[in-house]
């Protein structure tokens, strides 16, 4: 099997299977979480619950990341907080605004988006943020490996989480910059690692990128009901 034939397989049947596993797996996880249920609380809500959800997202995504010093996490572990933030920002921009990825989304969402498409950002900017995210990942790995508490908390699954995100990141960065290997060889490595990540996500904690939005909504709603600040 030549590199090009393997690339066809990675972009074809393997991606197809990995994406279906991802969809089915995430659906499985979501139903399981919902199946846990929660206690019925018949007390009258103290604040508007929908507003609580909105406030929860605003504070979590748009406000607190930009005034981090008000948070205890930042005061105790500024490097982790900054590295974590930059990693998530870089990953978000690369996945949703990198040109190659925008075209993937257009293709995947073609049948449901009714022609809606968003533009890509300039390559130098996306490239910079990708590099920042990669460095941030390395910083977080060093922290995880050297901090005595983190050493005790880190298991094999955490290392796999890191690896299955890092591999698509680094191969994607090298692919864009056409370094080390030929374009199609790096494309193959990138596509394979993305497929593996898609399969891994429902099995591990990276699934938080979808469940975050559910938990944020539930927390916002519940906190508002009790009149507490999120």
């Amino acid at each position, binding site marked *: 099997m030549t590199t090009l034939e393997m690339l066809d397989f990675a972009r*074809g049947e393997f991606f197809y299977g990995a994406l*279906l596993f991802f969809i089915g797996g995430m659906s499985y996880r979501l139903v399981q979480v919902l*199946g846990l249920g929660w206690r019925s609380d018949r007390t009258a809500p103290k604040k508007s619950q929908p507003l609580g959800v909105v406030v929860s997202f605003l504070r979590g995504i748009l406000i607190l990341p930009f005034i981090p010093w008000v948070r205890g996490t930042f005061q105790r572990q500024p490097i982790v907080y900054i590295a974590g933030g930059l990693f998530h920002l870089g990953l978000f921009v690369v996945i949703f605004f990198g*040109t190659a990825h925008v075209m*993937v989304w257009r293709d995947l969402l073609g049948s449901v988006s009714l022609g809606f498409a968003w533009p890509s950002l300039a390559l130098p*900017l996306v490239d910079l943020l990708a590099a920042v995210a990669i460095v941030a990942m390395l910083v977080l790995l060093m922290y995880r490996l050297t901090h005595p508490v983190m050493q005790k908390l880190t298991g094999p699954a955490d290392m796999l989480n890191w690896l299955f995100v890092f591999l698509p990141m680094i191969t994607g960065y090298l692919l864009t910059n056409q370094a080390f290997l030929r374009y199609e060889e790096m494309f193959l490595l990138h596509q394979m690692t993305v497929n593996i990540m898609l399969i891994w996500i429902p099995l591990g904690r990276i699934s938080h990128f979808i469940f975050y939005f559910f938990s944020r909504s539930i927390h916002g709603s519940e906190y508002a009901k009790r009149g507490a600040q999120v």
Partner: protein
Amino acid sequence: MATEKIYEAWQRKGISRRDFLKAGAIITAALGLSASEVDKVMALLQERHRVPVIWLEFQDCAGCTESIARSQNPTLSSLVLNTLTIEYHETLMAAAGFQAEDNRRRIMQDYRGEYVLVVEGSVPTADDGVYCTIGGHSAEDLLKETAEGAAAIIAVGNCAAYGGIPKAKPNPTGAKGIDEILTDKTVVNIPGCPAIPEAMSNTITHFVVFGELPELDEIGRPLAYYRNTVHDRCLKRPFYEAGKFAESFDDEGYRAGWCLFKLGCKGPTTYNACASLKWNEGTSFPIQAGHPCIGCSQPNFWDQGGFYTAQSAPLMEPSLPMALIAAGVGAAAGAGVTVANRMGKKKDAEPASQEEEKASE
């Protein structure tokens, strides 16, 4: 049987010593050699004999023949088309029928181990090769027979190199590139649709001058023409780097000459010299003319997604109903496991509660 020498043939045609020297310099440059190699090339040209060429056509459109016949480098096209005595070429030769086939066999016999075999078009292998026969023989038999005594075998065009359009799914004729059939021989592939004329003529010239095949990549292409991607040498590359892309064939970006990546350009994975050698006397090439590269020098280019679908897009993706089925299966499995867990917990709890009841009694 030895043919006359190249230099003798040129002298017979009245080509002056000055023109011969010019030709040597042009050939040296065209082969990508340094100026210091001119003497060597000149010496070799004086020594080398004319090489008979047998040009077979199978499942093709003769586009590669059209391409080389329109080569804008007169020295090289003359070298290949006139000096190299093309002894058999269905599109160009005057002979026909059994006379032509007899001539091919005579050349194979008289110049065994000396002639160059050029193949254009793919070879059908389904149904005993009935989809392409010449003089009552299948393309596969003709290819094997002619390749047996060839000094060099060159596949021109994507069809001969990798199966090309005839091999596109569902490949009803079982089309194959010739190196899939001649597995025990080295085949030089000059893919393209059509192949770049200079890549064809220069590769043949390389063999004639040096008596050996040029350096090849892992899928048999001469590195001199297929070392870099179209993207590497593209004149629109700066727009790609700057993230400036045409979004449609009539928007402002397109008119401003921006990168065609989003319109399906396959330049990043296409190894060919289009962007550097160009076509029609170096006038232009598809991307310069405003069309995305379709990757015609790559194996199976016809099945690499749509020509206007971006290269990063997957080749296969689940349809919406299929995605919903996957989500449904996942949800059903999740619900099933949840219910089973709850029932398991109830069962575990029941004996304990019975013991508690007994204790309270």
